[in-house]
């Protein structure tokens, strides 16, 4: 899949200009100017969807198995009885859990894949993600502290790599999953080079 232009930033600010808090004091025009143009956001490797489905499948097996165990051996236990009343048909917990996970397996990877995009611009790294809560992070290269690549067993099997970017702020790291291994290494090297260059300059 090639690059895809996604208009993250429509030209001029579309919303109403902010109202002056004290009209007499501040009577300038809207303080927000338009952005230079659209940002080209790249999608992840499409195979990452299959990887996510597999990972969700593994979790589904664990959870459904757990539910089945509770239903088979938990009958008569006071704690289980309190949470799972007898009035419900047998097998509903296992069935429900399986159905839920199948739904997750089918829906979530595609949705997540569609939302998760990234762009390497001249000065900064853009990452867009989040299915329900949309999140767009912009990380200037000069603020990068560490760039890691990560590969779990499943990822290794697929030949995919995860790129993790850290700044000095706690908990804010950019994450780009589903990069082809070679591409991730190249990206890491490139980010490292750009970042150290920027950090020296600024």
């Amino acid at each position, binding site marked *: 899949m090639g690059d895809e232009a996604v208009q*993250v*930033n*429509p030209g*001029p*600010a*579309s*919303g*109403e200009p*902010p*109202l*002056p*808090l*004290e009209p007499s*004091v*501040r009577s300038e025009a809207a*303080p*927000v*100017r*338009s*952005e*230079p143009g659209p940002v080209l956001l790249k999608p992840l490797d499409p195979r990452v969807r299959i990887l996510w489905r597999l990972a969700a499948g593994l979790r589904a097996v664990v959870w459904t198995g757990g539910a089945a165990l509770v239903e088979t051996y938990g009958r008569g236990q006071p704690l289980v009885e309190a949470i799972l009343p007898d009035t419900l048909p047998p097998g509903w917990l296992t069935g429900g859990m399986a159905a839920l996970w199948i739904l997750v397996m089918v829906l979530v990877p595609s949705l997540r894949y569609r939302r998760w995009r990234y762009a390497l611009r001249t*000065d*900064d790294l853009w990452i867009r993600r*989040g299915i*329900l*809560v*949309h*999140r*767009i*992070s*912009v*990380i*200037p290269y*000069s*603020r*990068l*502290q*560490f*760039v890691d690549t990560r590969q779990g067993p499943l990822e290794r099997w697929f030949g995919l790599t995860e790129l993790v970017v850290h*700044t*000095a*702020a*706690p*908990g*804010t790291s*950019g994450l780009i999953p589903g990069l082809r291994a070679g591409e991730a290494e190249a990206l*890491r*090297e490139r*980010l*490292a*080079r750009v*970042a*150290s260059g920027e*950090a020296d*300059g*600024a």
Partner: protein
Amino acid sequence: MEPEGAPSAAPEHLPPERVPPEQHPTDRIPTEHLPTEHLPTDRPPADRLPTDDARGRLPWSVLLLEGRRFLVGLLGLALVAGPYRWWPMGVFAALFVMRGVQLRLLRYWLTPDSFVIERGLLFRRRRVISRARIQAVDLERGLLHRALGLTEVRVEALGGGDTEGALPGVEPEMAARLREELVAREPGRSPAREPGQPWQDGAGEEEAAAPADTHPPDPPPLVRLAGAEVVVAGLTESRLGAGVAAAWVGLEAVRQGAFSGWFGTPEDWVPILESLPWMAVLVILGVLVLLFSLLLSFVLTVLGYWGFTLHLRGDVLEVERGLLTQHRDTVSLDRIQAVRVEENPFRRLMGLASVKVVVAGRARSSTGSGTNVLLPVGPRAQAFELAARVAGWTHLPPLHPMPAQARARRRMRAGIAAVVAGLAGPTLLHPAAGGMAGVSALLPWNWSGGMLLVAVGVGLGVGLVALLMAEGAWRGLGWAEEGSHAAFREGTLERRTTLVPLSRLQSVEVVSTPFQRRRGLATLLIPVARPALESDPRALDLDEGVARGLRIRLLEGARQARREGADRGTSGLSPGAAGGMFIP
């Protein structure tokens, strides 16, 4: 007073700007090759700071200081196991001896680019803190420290949630020298012009303690609180959490039978309490807890902030405070990630505010409350002026309000709260539910429409309060951006205004939940190098388009600010670049 006869040929007041970086190499030339006029006056004699060849160790009295913990443990053990079990005491004695040996084996020293602490009995652990990573140096002297003539030194560095380098107790002179040396971050370049009283009891800031003829007078402090002002700070501080916790412990102690001789046994009280409706008991209890917590917060605040003085020496902020436990906290201006002005409800009514700083590595939990406070309480205008000055903002622009949709969102929430209360209220209040006996007797259940009436009444009451809160919450929101700085405000009852120098920006995030997107809103976050417990500066519920435009402006502002900083020779000090931590 240490360099008694030190030549003071340098200008009396260093300009606020740091010396440009071109001069750094000169500073590194061994001092013996330099004519004395070029020596900074405040340079501590190198031979008095511990070096790799002459490593520093903690004085013997530290053992007594550490002994208090074992005393507490021993007392606890005696209470639990009874005082006649000797073996636990033996274990404690052994632990104490081990700890003592550990402390005696602790060594610390300075190298040209780091501060090193080596400790451990069997396994020697060496912690090397790069000077460039040091964020703040805080000194503390509790009552026991003062009795023993010791000072605790805490070196806060970037990364890691905990205090990076702690010396439980060193001589006050050594603590003062370490502080100056480490805050300067470059060997022998202490920005604090006044090298400092060794900070002994009573020395404080008194001019009389300094030889006035050899040293120019200290610049006047940015903040100096009189006793009455500290009392005001105490009266308006709301540390309800601590108070409630303490009250709970107290109640539990009473329940366990402590103080039983004082007010009679709990058995005496039970009939009296049972004769009251339990709503009344709840109210009485609530008032007691509130009064107690207010008293506790007052006492803690007054003790903690007594004699509060804030100095700006060079580009280093220095806070001195505390009546029983004395603090001397030092942080360099370029280590401050953000400045917060907080106005709690009491203070807002009186036109007062307090100022705090966000410093990486200085966790709230590990250093106790108040370490990051620059102004415990002061007039609103003074608070904002101080915050702007510390953030490097020449003047604060007025804040823009958030769009009407943000208000609509809050009103919607108030409406939902009203409906939920209307639905749940009657069921909870009905005598059949057994609850709220005091109130439910007053309600018109016997009337046919009583249930509906109660539902509507509760719903309206809750709705009205929620609506007022929603309005307050919306009015509390605001944002401003101007070139190199941004300011965000939020808070319904307590308003918090955060000023961020954009050179501290680590990234920009625009986040939107489905509820926000429905109304075309988004939240903009500026992650900074903050302690994990603090929150990032954010603008809640901006217009989506404004958020996008602001994002670009903030990034541009950050780039500009860093470039200007580089020109002035003060960047590279922001944690991102300064640490030299970049490891590809």
